[in-house]
């Protein structure tokens, strides 16, 4: 089973199994990882599942939809390596993915 490491803002790490086909957001929410709010439940409609993708992995992710680009543009703490984790679907190729969580979601 592929693994994702979620690093909270304070540095606390959680290394979790996230099955192929599940979103990185869902992996966090299923394990109650603090720092990913996912208000809309994965519809790319709230930008509260925002994560920073470790540079080693950023280019390995699928492309961003216009909707994701749009929603991310409103996130206060967005950086060039920001993604909405509900739009990152786990594959075997992403085994070992590392994402960092922002200070807060809004």
């Amino acid at each position, binding site marked *: 089973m592929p693994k994702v490491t979620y690093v909270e803002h304070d540095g606390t790490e959680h290394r979790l199994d996230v099955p192929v086909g599940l979103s990185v957001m869902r992996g966090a929410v299923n394990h109650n990882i603090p720092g990913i*709010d996912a*208000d*809309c*439940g994965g*519809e*790319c*409609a*709230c930008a*509260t599942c925002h994560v920073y993708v470790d540079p080693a992995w950023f280019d390995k992710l699928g492309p961003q939809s216009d*909707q994701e680009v*749009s*929603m991310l*543009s*409103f996130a*206060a*703490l967005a950086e060039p390596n920001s993604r909405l984790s509900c739009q990152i679907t786990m594959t075997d190729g992403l085994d070992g993915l590392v994402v960092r969580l*922002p*200070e*807060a979601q*809004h």
Partner: protein
Amino acid sequence: MNAPLGAGLDGDPHRIALDAIDVSDPRLYRDDVWHPYFARLRREDPVHYFRDSRYGPYWAVTRYKDIMQVEVNHQVYSSASELGGIQIEEQPKDMDRPSFIRMDPPKHDEQRKVVSPVVAPGNLANMEGLIRERTARVLDGLPRNETFDWVDRVSIELTTMMLATLFDYPWDDRRQLTYWSDVAICNVNSPDAPVHSEAERFTELGKMAAALGALFNERAVQPPKFDLLSMLAHGEATRQMPIREFMGTLALLIVGGNDTTRNTMSGSVLALHEHPGEYRKLRDNPALIPSMVSEVIRYVTPVIHMRRTAKEDAELGGKHIKKGDKVVIWYVSGNRDPDAIEEPDQLVIDRPRPRQHLSFGFGIHRCVGNRLAELQLRVLWEELLPRFPAIEVMGPPHRLYSNFIHGIRSLPVRIPA
């Protein structure tokens, strides 16, 4: 009171013809009787075309997932003021007051981004201490063993203070902001409204623009600071906005930034009173406050509907929407949709995924102040619970005559000593 619409509204909601149900009737919300009409619509015709309403023909969208679809597809479902804006009732064309809530991208995006930093996580953290201090002071000043109006003494008092801070508005004049908020959003047909015609409303909002415009002009020539007027005065996309857009933007921030939170503060007291088991659960475990806050925001649904206009033909819930059609998404219904939310008519303060409600909207127009609203509500209950053994509701709420704002004008309560 204005002439009512379909006689059906006075008949049995379970039997009247669907077309006789006009959910845009403000009486439904004033009298709190809207539930069965929406239950019928969700079950029988979730995307329903009302041919004859007091506002002309419109599509009523009543299920959670269809509402979400409209929200996310802003390219199809426009918020633009020129097409009619975001309420079922349209502003008169010569008195319309655009703001970014009634704009599409790119202009919407540019303007929203000017003000959104005021509620960025760091700024919220900075404001929490101040919010807590004020909340404590207001609560400590409340009478005990005596009936008073929670709306006036707490909900309006606290949210007005918040507004004064957000605008850096002269403290002693802060109730003027509440007045202008009520003017901006009232239904002019209500006998309780502060103004009774669109012309009167426009005149009063003109005075608001003049007063706030004076501060705006002062701050434009001073270094930028962290209040909404300074941000508007310095923002590239907003510093030269025309007067009616200025009126609209101020009204948006004043209403969105206070009225909704005010009504949820009042509604939270009422909701917990109506669900004593949940109130007990909360007292036994104050760690449930954040979850309760979200659940109350769902249960109250401070904004009853939003409206869009189709820019092209589209399919929605199996129906064919035509370009130009008015599409109304009823948050108050989507938040009670059993296909999306379990036991939706029950207040359940520890339900899973409490934030998955529609009250803040979704998509690019999602309430920019949502986390500030949650913060104010959380602090209110954190300060309330240890201070008061109970808040007894002593009589029915007096609700607002409106199909847009789900408001409570007064709520008599008593706090035992």
